[in-house]
């Protein structure tokens, strides 16, 4: 992603010379599909290079950046309860000598400080679940927990999701194909949502074109599948379905590797027990719950298709999935550290752990979310109790 200089007017962050229309929304969607990539904050050639984000920051940044680059209005509600929106019209950064890009980055950091996976609910609205309204550039919100950007809607109906996470950092974004039912909305504050145009910021959601509360009637367990079914143009083959579920588990384990490594690096830097805030940032409690759910999804799929397993053309993947989910027998050290064919996870330099062993260790409660423990204990190589407080 690159950008030319945008002119700010009379001290505003940028001037809105254009308006949101169905056409600009379609272009925004295409921009997200093609430009909003996992390396958007880590690629030195990216306009947003080196920007620190957490999950909500990344989602707001996606919408704000397109608005900035295309001189469109951008506004969100003031989470502190003021009646005036936070918008590109703000003049706070109108200092002499400040570049337009620096002004925009100051604005982004300000939005990051105010926004969260709670506030974004009020800056978006739930949409109809069909291909007209669920588009790249929308968000999938687990209210007060996490927010994903929708990067693409695949022909099979699967959502290509992309997201940052906590703690706020310059990081490559996590990518996932679709989601499990832990993300299903509990109420109308979450779900699949589109950004409100500034003119609709204080409009009742049901008056906005494209609004629908139908997705909240989907049973929570079935929500991911019903969304997929509504959005699909072609039916997933059993092999595709298996590969997607398997890859999702694999990706989540790899994300955990990154997350644990971040914690270990931080722990080595501070060399003391983590305080409450650090503990929250570096523990993997929710991530581990999510990973267990993904293992369970794969297991349910394998169990439900076992009788008709001959339909899978990729026999090697099927066998690997069976082994990952069903095999309770402990492997030898040599076996467990040998990566499986379809998912290689190196949890420390030169050491692999296969997915079956990760699942087995989760089942046995050997894996811990405690960020004060060393790497081997985090992955269940050894049992260790922390002397540091848990928060």
């Amino acid at each position, binding site marked *: 992603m690159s950008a030319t200089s945008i002119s700010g007017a009379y001290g505003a962050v940028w001037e809105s010379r254009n308006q949101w229309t169905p056409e600009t929304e379609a272009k925004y969607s295409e921009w997200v599909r093609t430009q909003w990539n996992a390396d958007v904050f880590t690629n030195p050639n990216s306009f947003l290079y080196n920007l620190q984000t957490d999950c909500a920051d990344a989602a707001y940044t996606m919408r704000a950046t397109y608005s900035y680059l295309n001189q469109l209005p951008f506004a969100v509600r003031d989470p502190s309860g*003021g009646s*005036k929106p936070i918008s590109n019209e703000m003049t706070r950064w109108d200092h002499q000598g400040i570049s337009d890009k620096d002004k925009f980055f100051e604005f982004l950091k300000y939005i990051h400080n105010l926004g969260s996976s*709670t506030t974004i609910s009020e800056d978006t609205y739930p949409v109809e679940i069909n291909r007209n309204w669920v588009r790249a550039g929308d968000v999938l919100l687990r209210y*007060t*927990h996490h927010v994903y950007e929708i990067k693409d809607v695949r022909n099979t109906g699967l959502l290509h999701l992309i997201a940052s*996470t906590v703690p706020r950092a310059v990081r490559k974004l996590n990518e996932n194909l679709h989601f499990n039912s832990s993300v299903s909305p509990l109420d*109308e504050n979450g779900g699949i949502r589109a950004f409100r145009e500034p003119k609709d910021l204080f409009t*009742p959601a049901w008056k906005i074109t494209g609004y629908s509360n139908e997705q909240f009637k989907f049973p929570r367990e079935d929500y991911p599948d019903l969304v997929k079914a509504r959005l699909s143009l072609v039916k997933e083959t059993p092999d595709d379905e298996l590969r997607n579920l398997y890859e999702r588990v694999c990706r989540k384990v790899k994300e955990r590797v990154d997350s644990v490594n971040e914690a270990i690096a931080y722990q080595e830097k501070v060399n003391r027990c983590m305080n409450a805030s650090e503990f929250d940032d*570096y523990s993997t409690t929710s991530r581990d719950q999510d990973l267990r759910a993904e293992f369970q999804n794969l297991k349910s799929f394998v169990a439900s298709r076992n009788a008709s397993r001959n339909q899978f053309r990729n026999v090697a993947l099927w066998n690997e999935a069976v082994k990952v989910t069903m095999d309770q027998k402990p492997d030898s050290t040599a076996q467990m550290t040998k990566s499986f064919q379809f998912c290689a996870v190196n949890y420390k330099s030169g050491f692999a752990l296969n997915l079956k062993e990760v699942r087995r260790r989760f089942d046995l409660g050997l894996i811990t979310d405690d960020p004060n423990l060393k790497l081997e204990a985090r992955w269940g190589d050894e049992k260790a109790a922390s002397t540091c407080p848990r928060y």
Partner: protein
Amino acid sequence: MRMPLIFIFCCLVIAALFFDRKLAGVDHKTMTSRIEETVSKSEMLPEAKAFAQAVSSGYKNRDEGKSQDSAGIRVSAENQVELQRCGLPFGSDVKTMDDVIQGLSRESGKAEKRALIWRNVHFKSPDGEERRLRVWRDFSIGLRGKLRAQLYTLDEEGLPVPLEQEQDAEKSLEGAKIHETQEKVSLTFGEPKHLSLSIEMKNGSVRSFEAKDDSMAFQCFTAPGSESADCKCLGRAD
């Protein structure tokens, strides 16, 4: 590093005590004395106590001006039609949004789950500076619903500026006078209807809400600065 801890601790006490006072039927006087009692018994750091006491005293001060806050958002004739369509409390006894929520709560029994989503407190510091405090629950990875807090001052445009210095925070809060509170809470009820409510209040009066159960979905929204709500029955399974 002490600042976030102090804030979180204080806000935990304050938010827990302030929460749901209206629906729980606790009057402001009782609430104020509860806050003071808790603050005096707690083992909070001195700065934290000052913070809590400041908010407590501000809360007392707000009581004096309660009359103008307590009218609530009126239920219009159009809103009555929508309430009736969704089978919610309506009629001559239902004059305000608060009446709707109280009627619904009465019909639904005791809430199984209550949660504060966020709370904003707008107040003036003794030197007349406008300040805001936001408290919210954060379930981001690892946080498990931790209460977080942020204090703001306002810029020339009336927009919030996060305050980061502890000294500023203490100075702002000592003798603070609260003139507005806003909060969003959620309530979940069990059998028979599995009603869930998401309610936004200002100064203890309901301004917006969403109600959903097995048979209907209903929303009322009041825009900032407006005194009339826009309500809609969004689905009824007959």
